[in-house]
């Protein structure tokens, strides 16, 4: 038989189409695919890498327990390289090419808003597992991180009771920073305090000398920092280098989320107050099992890399798995309905329950202080509902809602 170019092309085209169809049928048949879209390199990789590991750990545990709906779960991982445009691209790829059952991912609020519309348009379920500024009202998304009424509401009154009434706010200049700064102002005012000044910084600002002088001139009782990312970390260094640590105390809504307390030295980090959902110190069987499983999979030395966002990702994945189990299928609408029954799981950060009206979570909050590069628990507040989003969002009444509400001051 002679093989000319035309028959070769026709034959190979047919073969590749057949292979694609077979491959897709296999993919849809044998496993349930989930997408992980996180920054695994670039300036936000300190946030993203442990989140990706938490996904792997959760999937291992789900598969070891027999998988979901009779199938194994398979992860498809994307590295967005700390670049927002890649979120849009990979979001489309996950929804259209890989046709995944759920997308877990997004770190900065800007990245969430880059993929949220894409995933909604293509009917792909989305879990956003990051502490954020609250207010997203969209039936296709579940937010498992703490929101301001959970973190800021715990943090600010505690800080004010310890240090005084006058606050100076520093925040990153994008949607998260702008909105969280308003929440901080709101809670400072609610507790009878006063905000002296709010300063915003683009993410690449790394010289804070003039700012530190300005803060001293304003003489606040404490500083609230909502600075984000690697460049902003130099603020804490310069603050300590100027000897400010002993003079004006600080609380932060972001520090520690990416385990910055182990990047900073003891002198730079000690004494800063934080409030989130999880601390390695939480003494529950679920947390101990989680830490032990992490140590077994990634090594004991890696345990100190676990942070708030990794735990939220693990909990988000487990909530989704519980919903698939309950629904008996990974079908998007059935899973959403299962989650909307007010599903709850026992995670490393305590009991976490889906709030059906807002698709946010009711969870435990811990106020912590950085001590010797560790997050030491100073106060625990059980089962705090996401009041901020509840005040503006009701997906039961308006299931087609697709907005992010902002607080008005």
């Amino acid at each position, binding site marked *: 038989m002679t093989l000319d170019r035309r028959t070769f092309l026709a034959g190979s085209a047919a073969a590749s189409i057949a292979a694609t169809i077979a491959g897709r049928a296999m993919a849809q048949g044998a496993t349930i695919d989930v997408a992980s879209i996180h920054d695994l*390199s*670039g*300036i936000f*990789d*300190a946030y993203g890498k442990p989140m990706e590991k938490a996904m792997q750990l959760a999937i291992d545990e789900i598969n070891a327990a027999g998988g979901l709906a009779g199938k194994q779960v398979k992860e498809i991982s994307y590295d967005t*390289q*700390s670049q927002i445009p890649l979120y849009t691209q990979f979001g489309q790829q996950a929804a259209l090419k890989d046709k995944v059952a759920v997308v877990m991912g997004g770190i900065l609020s800007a990245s969430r808003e880059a993929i949220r519309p894409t995933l909604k348009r293509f009917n792909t379920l989305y879990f956003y597992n990051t502490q954020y500024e609250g207010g997203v009202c969209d039936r296709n998304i579940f937010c498992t991180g703490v929101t301001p009424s959970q973190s800021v509401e715990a943090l600010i009154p505690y800080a004010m009771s310890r240090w005084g009434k006058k606050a100076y706010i520093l925040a990153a*200049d994008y949607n998260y920073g702008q909105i969280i700064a308003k929440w901080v102002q709101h809670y400072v005012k609610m507790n009878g305090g006063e905000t002296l000044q709010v*300063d*915003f*910084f*683009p993410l*690449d*600002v*790394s*010289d804070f*000398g*003039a*700012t*530190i*002088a*300005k803060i*001293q*001139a304003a003489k606040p009782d404490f500083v609230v920092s909502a600075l984000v*990312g*690697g*460049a902003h*970390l*130099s603020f804490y*260094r*310069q603050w*300590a*280098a*100027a*000897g*400010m640590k002993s*003079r004006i105390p600080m609380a932060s809504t972001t520090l520690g989320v990416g385990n910055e307390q182990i*990047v900073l*030295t003891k*002198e*730079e980090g000690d004494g800063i107050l934080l409030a989130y959902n999880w601390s390695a110190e939480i003494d529950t069987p679920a947390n101990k099992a989680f830490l032990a499983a992490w140590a077994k999979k990634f090594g004991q030395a890696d345990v100190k890399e676990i942070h708030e966002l990794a735990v939220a990702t693990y909990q988000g994945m487990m909530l989704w798995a519980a919903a698939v189990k309950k629904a008996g299928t990974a079908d998007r609408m059935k899973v959403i309905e299962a989650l909307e029954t007010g599903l709850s799981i026992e995670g490393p950060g305590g009991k976490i329950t889906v709030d059906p009206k807002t698709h946010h979570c009711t969870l435990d909050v811990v106020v912590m202080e950085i001590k010797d590069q560790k997050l030491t628990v100073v106060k625990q507040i059980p089962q705090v509902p996401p009041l901020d989003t509840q005040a503006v969002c009701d997906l039961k009444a308006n299931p087609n809602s697709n907005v992010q509400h902002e607080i008005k001051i």
Partner: protein
Amino acid sequence: MDFAVVVIVEILYAVASLALISAGLAVVFGMMRVINLAHGEFLMLGGYSAIVAVKAGINIYVAMLVVAPLVVGILGLIVERLVIRFLYGRMLDTMLATWGLSLLLTGLVTMIFGNTTTGISTPISGYRVGAYQLSGYNLFIIVAGVLVMAGILLTLRYTRVGLIARGAMQSPDMASGLGHNPQRIYMITFTVGAALSGLAGGILAPLTGLTPTTGGLYVAKAFITVISGGAAVVAGTLSSASLFGTITQVVTLSSTPVWGDVAMLIAAVILLRLLPQGITGRFFRRQV
């Protein structure tokens, strides 16, 4: 009163750090008319050299003041021999070549260290001025800026090497006729410029974290300072650094760092409209 001291120290610090990041470029561009678009990456490499040296257990001052300039100086020498020396007098080609070099260096550093932030703590503790607390490291940077500028000035003005270098820049043929080898002088000048960039990168490293793309933050400021300064290496850099440093800090103190940078850029545009040859094109013309 105390606040006035704070403001003055902050301004001096801004001036000194602008002068430091521009010094290497001022030597290379000001004297040789070579536009080195990889200048920012030289600074970045100086920073990484210092950080790697500190993490290897070397004393931080040795790392910043010796290792960083040495490493980047050697790199500058290699770059001059392999690339720049073929391109003297061809400004566009040099720009293209050094831009390519900057991409290459960024890529290499990303491969070695990863696209993450690294940093070390500053070695000097804070001090107190009245009711205010200031960073001791800022004073160190001011002193370093003064010493570097004084060093360049004294070398160019009062040493035989400086005289030969200035002569070769003004008239290579004449210098050649007098028995000096212009190729060799260019090589040494470029190496010294690179070493100065490495020194600045090393000194600034503890203050801010470093990423492989840090160079981009420096290069624009350095070029604006050097071009606005004009032909004279020391007088030009110092006068434009003083002007821009003051404007940036005063605006930053009264608003935010964003407006500080905006004000600096506006000032540079107006300045270059009025003085296209830079400050030393009209004032301090006979200075070095």
